[in-house]
């Protein structure tokens, strides 16, 4: 595109992370800071009878012990369903039931052990399907009293936190036209976001009533808004400080535990209070990712056209539903992959259970959905006797023509869904059978999955940006987006460099934010950062440039349209020797006699999504997102029937979008691929029969290690841009992990003829299913391992 900075693999500007002097919230301390320690309940569901803490108060250094009674109100994101500390009942094993604040963490931990609680155990409900039964124990008896957002539909008297509906066409008519129908239930367990930086929050209340908080979060403005709303504070009296974030993956979107240190500080005369979680606490006190049941019935005509899809999606939301109610909206409004289906009928439920609370996770339910729906696609193709790639191409959405599941006609520059599938197939050498290894217990197969996603956000999710020109022609950029490793600030700097013709080194985008000093952005989620901030920033740069031109036009006595900005200078068009540098006019241009015009130049720009609308509550009809990124992933796997392990030998990802920085996109693709593969193969939160989480640690919650990364990862951006996106670029962050569990399951089926409907596809499951579905394979392996002689 003839650009100098945009589209180039420019190294990240946040190199202080490598140097070791990057500052994270966990590093932050304040003078006079005191420590809070939470105390948890060892029951999944129990009535609290009595809490005794006089012994705890006697420990030297202890300032206070708090219980639920000290905070008689609820907080929450979309529904106020969360106690500050458990009141009346504990709702899950590990539910904070009391807290100690002390001068030191040592004293706090010592005192915490001395707290005693009496309970009356209640029967817990530990499975989402059980929770839907009419006689199931209720997690929240007073659901009818809870305040909630208008687009959330809780059902008082049940465990349903929300119910979302999507209706397109006429489902009965659809199935009556179907020649082949595939019906399955898929299951995916609760998992954890697995970020490295445990959560921390440090809060203080100043004498003027200002509440200040430093915490590990993705979105400073969301924390401010939710904190102010939950605690009834004026927005401007809440100042949220954002620092580098050591990973979020959705688990640090919205309000986390910030209200706890804030409330404690309020009770302690404004003293700074630090609540830091260790790894176990992070598993029990932070929200994890929901579990899923996907019931799917999909019909297709004999010529291979998808005609009807009926889905019932049940999300195990745990004790508090946080963002999971909105994740239900995400899978409810996009109940199938990037294919056109005339008749669609879907219900999505988020259901309370007595498990750990759940919230957002990278991909917002769609990786989970595509595991199920891309399995459906392969199973349908098999029944039809059609090639899975050909079957997908026959049904894939066509920009400008297709009507989506939410009855939106796809804009003509929406992207290249078919191209992504075709290219992924080409790169994995689809159609060429994999070379089988010499060990007769290893089997190889290929699999593919397609995906699409746009940000799941309110129709008014806004962003803004400010660009300040400095004395020497350098630039400070102020944005509200969080930096959590995704690299948005580098990409934004590239845009500034391109637009002003100045080197990257002359641009600063600080990683720190404070909500009273940077312009607003709704949230750093949904792969929306670059798309939204990018547009706001381009408008801010336009604003700045018009001010530059105005000054230069006056200096050169020409019209403003006769000024162009190049290489950090404003020049007369056609006379590149007639220029003033940006430095000369940054603070006001001064004539030789001292007269000055202009003034400090500051550009401002805003963005709100265009055309997006609120879904109809009965049908889901809407334009839910300002863009969709389309793509496909393909893998070649090797299944080892001695170990039961599945190894991804080669992973291919194709995205339809252009890249502002191909190196950053590569980082996202590699990270997302490793994460998606690992979730497909290993990750699960395991609960015992009493609802106790058994693996709250990295020993048994298995994250991928360096040696687990596939040897061959290939990715390609097709460069098909959307016109209103910054340089055409759409979001990629979450997209990079969406296809993997589905593609791997399809590849396993092609390798060993075993169909899987559950995650993770761990050794236990592989061997169990081989025994059920293909026992002769194990006989073959036994035979091959016979000792000769």
């Amino acid at each position: 595109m003839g650009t100098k900075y945009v589209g180039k693999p420019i190294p990240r500007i946040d190199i202080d992370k490598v140097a070791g002097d990057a500052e994270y919230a966990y590093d932050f301390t304040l003078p006079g800071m005191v420590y809070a320690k939470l105390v948890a309940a060892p029951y999944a569901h129990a009535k609290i009878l009595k809490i005794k803490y006089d012994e705890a108060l006697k420990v030297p250094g202890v300032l206070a012990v708090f219980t639920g009674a000290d905070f008689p109100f609820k907080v929450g994101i979309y529904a106020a369903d969360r106690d500050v500390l458990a009141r009346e009942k504990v709702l899950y094993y590990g539910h904070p039931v009391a807290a100690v604040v002390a001068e030191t963490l040592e004293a706090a931990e010592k005192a915490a052990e001395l707290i005693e609680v009496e309970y009356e155990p209640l029967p817990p409900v530990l499975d989402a399907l059980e929770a839907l039964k009419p006689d199931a124990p209720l997690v929240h008896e007073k659901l009818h009293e809870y305040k909630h957002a208008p687009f959330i539909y809780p059902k008082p008297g049940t465990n349903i936190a929300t119910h979302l509906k999507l209706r397109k066409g006429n489902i009965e008519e659809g199935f009556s036209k179907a020649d082949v129908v595939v019906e399955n239930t898929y299951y995916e367990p609760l998992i954890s976001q697995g970020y490295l930086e445990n959560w921390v929050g440090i809060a203080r209340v100043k004498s003027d009533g200002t509440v200040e908080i430093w915490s590990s979060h993705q979105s400073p403005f969301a924390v401010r808004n939710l904190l102010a709303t939950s605690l009834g504070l004026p927005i401007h009296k809440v100042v949220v400080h954002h620092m580098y974030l050591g990973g979020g993956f959705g688990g640090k979107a919205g309000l986390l535990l910030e209200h706890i240190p804030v409330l404690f500080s309020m009770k302690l005369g404004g003293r700074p209070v630090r609540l830091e979680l260790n790894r176990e606490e992070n598993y029990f006190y932070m929200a994890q990712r929901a579990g899923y049941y996907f019931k799917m019935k999909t019909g297709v005509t004999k010529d291979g056209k998808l005609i009807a899809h009926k889905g019932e999606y049940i999300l195990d939301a745990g004790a508090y539903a946080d963002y999971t109610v909105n994740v239900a909206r995400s899978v409810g409004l996009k109940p199938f992959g990037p294919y056109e289906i005339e008749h669609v009928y879907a219900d999505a439920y988020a259901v309370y259970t007595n498990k750990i609370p759940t919230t957002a996770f990278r991909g917002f339910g769609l990786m989970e959905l595509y595991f199920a729906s891309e399995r459906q696609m392969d199973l349908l193709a098999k029944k039809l006797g059609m090639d899975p790639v050909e079957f997908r191409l026959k049904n894939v959405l066509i920009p400008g023509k297709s009507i989506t599941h939410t009855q939106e006609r796809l804009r003509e520059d929406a992207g290249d869904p078919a191209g992504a599938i075709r290219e992924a197939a080409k790169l994995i050498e689809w159609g060429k059978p994999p070379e089988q290894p010499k060990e007769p217990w290893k089997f190889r197969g290929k699999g593919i999955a397609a995906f699409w996603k746009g940000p799941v956000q309110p129709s008014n999710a806004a962003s803004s940006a400010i660009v300040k020109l400095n004395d020497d022609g350098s630039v400070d950029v102020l944005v509200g987006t969080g930096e959590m490793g995704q690299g948005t600030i580098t990409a934004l700097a590239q845009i500034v460099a391109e637009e002003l013709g100045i080197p990257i080194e002359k641009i600063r985008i600080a990683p720190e934010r404070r909500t009273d000093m940077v312009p607003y952005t709704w949230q750093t989620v949904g792969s929306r950062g670059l798309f939204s901030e990018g547009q706001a920033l381009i408008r801010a740069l336009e604003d700045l440039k018009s001010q530059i031109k105005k000054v230069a036009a006056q200096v050169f006595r020409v019209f403003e349209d006769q000024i162009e900005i190049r290489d950090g200078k404003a020049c007369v068009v056609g006379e590149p020797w007639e220029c003033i540098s940006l430095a000369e006019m940054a603070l006001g241009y001064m004539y030789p006699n001292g007269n000055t015009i202009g003034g400090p130049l500051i550009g401002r720009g805003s963005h709100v999504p265009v055309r997006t609308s609120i879904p109809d509550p009965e049908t889901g009809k809407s334009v839910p997102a300002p863009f969709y990124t389309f793509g496909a992933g393909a893998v070649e796997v090797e299944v080892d029937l001695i170990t039961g392990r599945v190894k991804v030998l080669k992973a291919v990802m194709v995205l339809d979008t252009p890249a502002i920085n191909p190196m950053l996109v590569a980082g996202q693709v590699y990270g997302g691929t490793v994460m998606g593969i690992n979730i497909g193969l290993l990750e699960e939160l395991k609960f015992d029969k009493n609802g106790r989480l058994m693996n709250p640690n990295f020993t048994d919650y298995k994250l991928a290690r360096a040696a687990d990364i596939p040897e061959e990862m290939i990715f390609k951006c097709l460069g098909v841009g959307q016109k209103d996106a910054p340089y055409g670029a759409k979001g990629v962050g979450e997209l990079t992990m969406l296809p993997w569990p589905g593609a791997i399951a399809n590849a396993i089926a092609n390798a060993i003829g075993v169909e899987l409907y559950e995650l993770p596809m761990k050794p236990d499951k592989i061997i169990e299913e081989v025994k059920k579905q293909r026992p002769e394979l194990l006989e073959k392996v036994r035979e091959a391992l016979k000792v000769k002689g």
Partner: protein
Amino acid sequence: MAASKSIIVFHTLLPEFEYFRPKTLQEALELLDKYKGDARILAGGTDLLVDMRMRLKQPKYVIDIKGIDELHTLKYEEGKGLTIGATVTLDELLNNKIVKEKYYVLWDAIRQLADTHLRMKATLVGNICNASPAADSAPALLVLKAKVNIASVNGTRTVEIKDFFKWVKKTILEPNEMVTSIFIPEPPEGAKGRYLKFVRSAEDLALVGIAALVANPKDPAKRIVRIALSSVAPTPVIVEEVEELFKQDKPLSELAEEAVKLVKSKVSPITDVRATKELREHMVEFGTRYLLKTLLEG
């Protein structure tokens, strides 16, 4: 994690303890004798400190033996065997030529034990004293017929490694005793060994670990076959009957089939957070088959 009565506290900090760093073994043994059940030995600390933070162990006294020179022995005597002192780290063993050449099965196990960072701190003796059923070094030491040298203020004693483990995380050590070294005799002439570790990801704990040692497979008179396993019983186990079995002058194919049956019958895996009983049984069978084929035919 301390689940005292009615609450859980997930501790960030270690419990309070008194710390000693003796310079001599005698000093360490005297401290151990003085504090008996209230003291723990600290070597690498990769198990002890974790257990202390989790409040699984709360010693009042911690005796750090890393300052005792005589416990840092790593000595090979031709024709006799290898002595590995209590503070010798796994990383030191991994970089030792004798271990790799003479005691390959042990080297193979250490190579797969934990990760690079932990191996720089963790010790072989610590791995044994922690007595985890999943201890990677244990099956290798069992097939190598290692001996454990134990000391207390009352003197020293030596036990066979197979008699050292009592139960999950329990050894035969008396409260005033500590392991000073492990002695591994010269392996049988021509012995080859392998440690097969079943894992979920790279650098994992063993779902099942199988060590096999084979010498002179084609010669019934001189043939030695030993198999030991981890993570399939309350302690690491050696299936001693396998060695007897292979002394018989029968076709290898037949003996191997019988050995697989024998191994399966001598283990009792359970379902836990890491794997199901069924998967472990599969691993025991197919892992044993794989090792026998590789080592007997090779």
